[in-house]
């Protein structure tokens, strides 16, 4: 009987730990990250995917696979200023595919900086060092 009680306690403790863990993750997402994630959903996810994995709905019309923003290793090799340049001037400006357009007419310069921060957050590149 005692054994069952201990097992039940263990389950409760584990659930508690999981429940506590979730808000901690949500807390880590600052309002700026959440706002930029919304911009990503609106503009970037059509090609880069709703899971940020480079597998958006438009992949069917693309001759080049969009970058997988969840790939920590590949994304870590990109300097932040190159990310900013690709978003503001398009892929061709950083010797990548011209299918990545310039977003300078849609995003403000501040939003482009926020998007670069968001991409570094998404790829967990800030945690890999």
């Amino acid at each position, binding site marked *: 009987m005692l054994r069952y009680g201990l097992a039940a306690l263990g389950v409760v403790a584990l659930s508690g730990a999981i429940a506590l863990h979730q808000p901690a993750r949500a807390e880590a997402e600052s309002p700026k990250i959440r706002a930029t994630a*919304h*911009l990503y*959903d*609106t*503009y970037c*996810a*059509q*090609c880069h*995917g*709703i*899971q940020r994995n480079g*597998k*958006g*709905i*438009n*992949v*069917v*019309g*693309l*001759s080049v696979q969009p970058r997988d923003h969840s790939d920590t290793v590949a994304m870590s090799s990109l300097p932040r200023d190159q990310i900013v340049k690709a978003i503001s001037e*398009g892929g061709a400006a950083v010797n990548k595919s*011209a*299918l990545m*357009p*310039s*977003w*300078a*007419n*849609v995003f403000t310069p501040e939003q482009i900086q926020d998007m670069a921060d968001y991409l570094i957050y998404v790829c967990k590149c800030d945690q890999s060092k």
Partner: protein
Amino acid sequence: MKAPMILAACVGLTALALAARPAAVEAQSADSELASQCASCHALTKPANPTVEHLWNRKGPDLWYAGDKFNREWLVGWLQNPTPIRPGGVLWFKHAKAGEPHDTIDTAAVEKHPKVDAATAEKLADALLGLKSGLVTEGTFKPEAVNMAMGKMAFGKLRGCAACHQDQKGQGGLSGPQLYDAGARLKPDYVLAYTKDPQQFDRYVWMPTLTLSEPDLQRLTGYIVSLGKEAK
């Protein structure tokens, strides 16, 4: 001598007023039809403070520039028998599902446009064609200068339009409106103006402004308005 002339003038004026009245009443009824049938889903005037949220909350695309955009004959037919123009719906993200090898659209969930009868379609088309933005200059597109093969290449490869738009059924991306019947649907000068700067029509739309030269704009417009002309 004066009295008969005054009488004749009065009769003439009354006749004129009566003749003008049905037209005015009809125009008014077309406008109220537009307000009652379309305004709950479509912006019929330019949004004063456009936001990203407007894209997420609207139930249909903005129509405040419908008069610049649509060919009347297509509009009358489509309103009676609407078929999806945007494969991903009004906002593609709302119908996108994550998956392998890539995300897909839940086509069953894409909004369906209500049908109207022929008489209402005519009335609505007239009212819609009266909605102009002032952003489109007639005669900007010069059909005589277009090289169609170059236009097709620019659409598919060089300028990447096919990334988001289909120029044939089932070929091309899904987040933008299909263009395989664009020739029947859209006015060339509008296609050119919108392609040049989509944000002046729809400030936060997810179509980017590409760096396109004037010959690029002409050849892309030429190709787009050649699509599906015969289909209507």
